[in-house]
């Protein structure tokens, strides 16, 4: 029986094989694509198994590789937490790899497919390594390799300037984040544990160490903001809506679905596993940032009409929701309420998994749509449900899930988060008592806005009539793409209908981190009912709700069709005047108009309507042009000033080098005089 950690290492190594394929059979693209992605899928399955085993089997495995520095070899560790994340990453990368077989071969000639394959595999392997790493060096190496690989994947179509800009912005942000993380490791190892040798850069040593509060805070803040830059927490999110849309869709699926989650992993690892003891305001900070990201994220998403950009902003939102759970858990932990902490943590992690599934699904769907229409602007689409029935069905599943509607998975994790919120009265701090309900309200607002947003998305893309100027021949996605999407939607449904089972499985994480379990209470009604805290408090049964609705629908349908009343299909009733045109449909911009009116103060909106008046009748304009631009305010607030400062400084340093040799001699002269004077 092979140990999980070995299995996961095997899978990591297995990701090298496709890279070799590129070298070996690079000249036959079709074969190359098919083989390499099937190998990646297989390798991901290994990790899925390894992760599942690691979480289920309640033990911790460690391993030291003969790599790295002489004094600091690479340490690996597979415990419940890392097992869970490996499971999630593996699951999505399995779906996406299946999907990619069709997607990548459909990219068309002239695209650097080899590059895509190479970095795709390095990227996934690096994500596994991030979860496995158990010392600062190994973690950072894996982390940066992950960043670099995804950077090259974003650069995929390097001909387009927006790709270059996005990739650059992303890389710089990622690197800054990595630097912060490095600093926080340095603080934890160098400053707090009296630095004898490199052994204190292993996480074990950090776990053992007792941190003085001051340095613990410094380390936490550094690492949190470092990870936040990766996770796209507002206000560090600017790179995200730039980078995700321009990458190939299978890559965006992975980036949005699981790469952001590695940052969540890092936060959980640092706070719950390494620092362990912290004041309650940490949790409050995380909670507040989470709320801000959730609400702002969904609002910005609502303003978009570029499909993938919209999805990217929704990643910001969902990361926010995850952080809400984690923040609550931190608050409860700091007040020594382990069971509640466990509930909140599970809620956050469950949403992590759910978001991976449905966001992956949505990006895959978006990929299929782009693939078919060569169009990213929703306002150029419409009525695709007739042309791509399968894709639309899967996409609909994604929409329902992300809108947190039963019986799909998004709802379960938000429901759990609400339950965590409802437990806040048992907090000793009055302020928290009053503030946390507000948080719950904001979460509700987020959910509702997300629903609105996805009504818009699905309605505008798949329903109604084709709005595009170019009547493009649209065909259904290929089998492998459909297979990938169907698997993901299945996962969404299962996670939504059978949460009790999954949560019993996940309970090992909270047990290992918080020494508290939910199973004791949640097991009461068996697998059909989910009763997180206690059946008296709250209960939800996915299966029954699903069955009930389906049953009633079926019964009514049958009752109404005992005598088949005939259905006549007619053109739409156009109120008797000129024929309706697709232009008259609501599109993305008009759909979100009420929201712009209400939440407009949050955006930097530029709106113009130009009417070209008819010469005889000024009352009836010839035609009108509408221009709308909605911008992120944070760029102007936070980033531009910094950039300007840096540019200014670099100009100042340029002054040093101004060509006259006398001046250079004076520098040397003055230097020596100063040094001698200081002597």
């Amino acid at each position, binding site marked *: 029986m092979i140990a999980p950690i070995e299995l996961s290492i095997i899978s990591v190594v297995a990701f090298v094989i496709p890279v070799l394929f590129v070298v070996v059979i690079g000249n036959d693209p079709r074969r190359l694509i098919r083989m390499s992605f099937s190998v990646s899928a297989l390798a991901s399955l290994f990790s899925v198994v390894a992760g599942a085993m690691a979480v289920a089997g309640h033990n911790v495995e460690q391993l030291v590789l003969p790599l790295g520095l002489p004094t600091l070899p690479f340490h690996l560790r597979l415990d419940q937490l890392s097992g869970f994340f490996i499971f999630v990453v593996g699951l999505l990368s399995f779906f996406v790899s299946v999907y990619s077989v069709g997607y990548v071969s459909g990219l068309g000639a002239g695209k650097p497919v080899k590059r895509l394959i190479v970095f795709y595999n390095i990227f996934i392997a690096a994500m596994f390594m991030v979860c496995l790493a158990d010392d600062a060096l190994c973690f950072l190496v894996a982390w940066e390799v992950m960043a670099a690989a995804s950077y090259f994947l974003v650069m995929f179509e390097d001909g387009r300037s927006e790709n270059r800009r996005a990739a650059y912005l992303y890389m710089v942000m990622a690197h800054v984040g990595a630097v912060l993380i490095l600093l926080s490791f340095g603080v934890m190892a160098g400053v707090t544990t009296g630095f004898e040798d490199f052994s204190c850069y292993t996480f074990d040593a950090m776990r053992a160490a007792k941190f003085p509060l001051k340095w613990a805070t410094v380390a936490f803040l550094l690492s949190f903001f470092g990870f936040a830059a990766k996770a796209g927490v507002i206000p560090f999110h600017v790179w995200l809506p730039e980078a995700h849309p321009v990458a190939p869709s299978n890559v965006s699926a992975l980036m949005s679905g699981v790469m952001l989650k590695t940052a969540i992993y890092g936060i959980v690892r640092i706070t719950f596993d390494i620092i362990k003891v912290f004041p309650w305001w940490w949790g409050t900070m995380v909670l507040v940032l989470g709320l801000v990201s959730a609400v702002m994220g969904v609002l910005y998403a609502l303003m978009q009409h570029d499909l993938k950009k919209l999805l990217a902003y929704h990643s910001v939102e969902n990361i926010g929701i995850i952080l809400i759970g984690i923040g609550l858990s931190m608050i409860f932990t700091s007040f020594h309420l382990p069971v509640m902490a466990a509930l909140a943590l599970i809620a956050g992690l469950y949403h992590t998994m759910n978001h991976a599934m449905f966001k992956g699904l949505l990006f895959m769907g978006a990929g299929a749509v782009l693939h078919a229409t060569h169009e990213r602007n929703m306002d150029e689409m419409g009525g695709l449900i007739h042309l791509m029935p399968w894709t639309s069905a899967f996409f609909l599943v994604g929409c329902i899930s992300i809108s947190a509607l039963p019986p799909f998975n998004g709802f379960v994790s938000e429901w759990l988060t609400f339950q965590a919120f409802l437990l806040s009265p048992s907090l000793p701090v009055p302020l928290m008592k009053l503030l946390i309900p507000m948080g719950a309200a904001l979460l509700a607002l987020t959910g509702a806005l997300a629903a609105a947003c996805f009504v818009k998305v699905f309605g505008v893309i798949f329903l109604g009539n084709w709005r595009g100027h170019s009547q493009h021949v649209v065909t259904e996605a290929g089998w492998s793409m459909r297979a990938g999407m169907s698997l993901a939607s299945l996962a969404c449904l299962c996670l939504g209908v059978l949460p009790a089972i999954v949560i019993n499985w996940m309970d090992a994480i909270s047990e290992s981190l918080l020494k508290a379990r939910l199973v004791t209470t949640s097991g009461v009604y068996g697998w059909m009912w989910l009763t997180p805290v206690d059946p008296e408090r709250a209960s939800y049964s996915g299966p029954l709700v699903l069955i009930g609705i389906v049953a009633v629908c079926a019964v009514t349908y049958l009752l109404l069709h005992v005598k088949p009343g005939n259905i006549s299909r007619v053109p739409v009733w156009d109120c008797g005047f000129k024929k309706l045109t697709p232009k008259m449909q609501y599109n993305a911009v008009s759909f979100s108009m009420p929201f712009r009116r209400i939440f407009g103060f949050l955006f930097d909106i530029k709106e113009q309507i130009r009417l070209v008046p008819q010469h005889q009748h000024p009352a009836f304009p010839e035609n009108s042009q509408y221009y709308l631009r909605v911008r992120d305010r944070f760029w102007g607030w936070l980033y531009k000033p910094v950039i300007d400062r840096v540019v200014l400084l670099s100009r100042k340093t*340029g002054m040093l080098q101004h060509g*006259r040799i006398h001046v250079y001699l004076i520098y040397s002269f003055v230097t020596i005089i100063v040094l001698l004077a200081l*002597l």
Partner: protein
Amino acid sequence: MNLQVLAQVNSFLAALVLLTAFAMLSQRKINSLVTLFAWQGLFLSINTAVVGFVASKHHLYISSLLTLSIKVILLPYILHVLVVRLKIRKEVETIVNIPTTMLIGIALVIFSYHLTAPVREMSTLITRSTLAVALATVMIGLLMMITRKHAVTQIIGFLAMENGLFFAATSATYGMPLVVELGVALDVLIAAFIFGIFFFHISTTFDSLSVEQMESLREDN
């Protein structure tokens, strides 16, 4: 002759070296600069010989001869030839005017005196007091390179610095080991050839030896 006298001779020569340094600092004509440089070399070599005699260090005679041949005869000759070949007649304009340069020079002398005070404390050699002069010569050479806008004057300043160093070597520590002396001399020789080549390149490329044209590699715009 007794040591006192020789010590006086030594310090007298040091004074002369310093004087020539100042004279170079104030001199506008390149020809006379070259001449002054030759004089400085001469004083230097005499001084070296004297010190050699005092300390009965025979390798110092060799280095004295080297100085004589290179710094008094060879280099001035090369420079002279160059000046003639490249028809450098006009006076060299300075960046800072002469009196100010003078004042700075004096300040430098005082500064280096102050700096070398501790060294003088612990030295037992009769020539110890001249270390300040040596350092001052180095500094003044550097100052000269800074204040002159002409390639040749910069080179002369550079060589003056070398003189200062050499003087320091002999005065602070009855001369460096011979191998070093030889090496330094060799380097100076090579340097001489190189700047010779340079003068031709510069004058052919920029049709003048003023350093001012060589300011195109800049980033402050």
